[in-house]
């Protein structure tokens, strides 16, 4: 199989046999986590950059092969590989954008903002402006003074009590990568679970949030 690996192309054939983790595997994991997590996770900037470069390489390879009129089967295999990588990348970015659309105000007010890429931040800013203008013109500007805030129900609210937030206490399926040991699920320490390597659990996202962020468990 080595003869068909284009120089500089993806090392998937080689590395799969050696049990290494390719960028596509990493992207798949990031995509899975992002898909299952109720809130937005850290943007995998370096990974996305690498994935983009590899996709470009793969595109060039496919083009080369098509120009050479080489084996059609080969071309379609590369094309399929390319399509799958592209899907992962697009879907990953899309899930994030849709989370931003839904919780833009919440994200912009909290430390979640730092998890966005520069482009996503620009998108979120635009989205907030657009949504604010829309709510302003449709409802807010026509309400009595004191009730015109987008973030507060009325002037007498002390906190911002009108911002949609993701529900963090939903249950998620997760898989442990290696032994975590006895893990405390709540603050009181009444519920303790022993997290063993490579096992599946259904837990509240809230309680394993830290583990997901640290990369010790994967969501599925």
């Amino acid at each position: 199989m080595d003869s068909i690996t284009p120089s500089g192309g993806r090392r998937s054939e080689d590395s799969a046999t050696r049990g290494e983790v390719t960028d596509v595997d990493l992207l798949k994991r990031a995509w899975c986590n992002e898909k299952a997590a109720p809130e937005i996770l850290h943007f995998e900037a370096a990974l996305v950059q690498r994935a983009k470069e590899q996709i470009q390489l793969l595109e060039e390879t496919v083009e080369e092969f098509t120009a050479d009129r080489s084996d059609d089967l080969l071309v379609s295999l590369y094309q399929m590989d390319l399509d799958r990588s592209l899907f992962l990348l697009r879907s990953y970015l899309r899930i994030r954008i849709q989370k931003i659309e839904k919780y833009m105000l919440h994200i912009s007010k909290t430390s979640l903002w730092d998890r966005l890429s520069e482009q996503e931040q620009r998108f979120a800013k635009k989205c907030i402006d657009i949504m604010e203008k829309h709510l302003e013109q449709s409802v807010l500007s026509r309400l009595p003074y004191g009730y015109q805030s987008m973030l507060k129900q009325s002037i007498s609210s002390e906190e911002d009590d009108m911002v949609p937030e993701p529900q963090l206490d939903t249950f998620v399926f997760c898989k442990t990568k290696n032994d975590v040991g006895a893990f405390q699920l709540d603050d009181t320490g009444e519920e303790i679970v022993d997290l063993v390597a490579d096992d599946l659990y259904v837990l509240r996202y809230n309680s394993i949030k830290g583990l997901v962020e640290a990369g010790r468990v994967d969501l599925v």
Partner: protein
Amino acid sequence: MYGRRASQLLRELASCEAGQITSFNDDNLEQVIRECNEHNLQLQSLIRKIEDASLDIQTTRNEDHYGAVIHHLSLTRNKRCLMAYIFNRAEVIQSLRWKIGPVLPQEIKEKLNYLEEEFFKNHSAAVESYMSELDLDMTVDMVPPKDPYIRVKVLDDIGEVFLNDHTVNLTQHSLHFIKRTDAEPFISQGLMEEFLE
């Protein structure tokens, strides 16, 4: 009855299938906004009454105070309902950009009010500028790919289209075997469908 109209707006949202949109209920919305302003008038007059009686507004707990509280709470409730109505519709409108594309068909346009159409245009532009920054079209590939090519049936005359360095004549009812990424925009616009035997 106070508060009923606002909840009607939300019931309309709830009775609608997820991702679908109903016609914008202008009348109801107007009435709820009017109701809000009435509540405010009553609220202000009660507050003035307390002040005129030279009582401390912070500590007074007489019937006027509780009356004012009820008006205040009704107002915030109405506001929550109005905002939820507009916001939830806006969410559906955002999702239309992903499902249908930058141009909305007439039958959906009719259901939006002019502010919502404006909102759709602005949001759509924001999505597009994000995609052009990344140099990646994110609206294709909505489902995981199985085969790079699919069989499609053309539902409406599309005409000559340049696909993958040769032109294809997409006439109505014709069948084609083309790249999935090329077909997707047509499928989402309802001009093609996947042909399954």
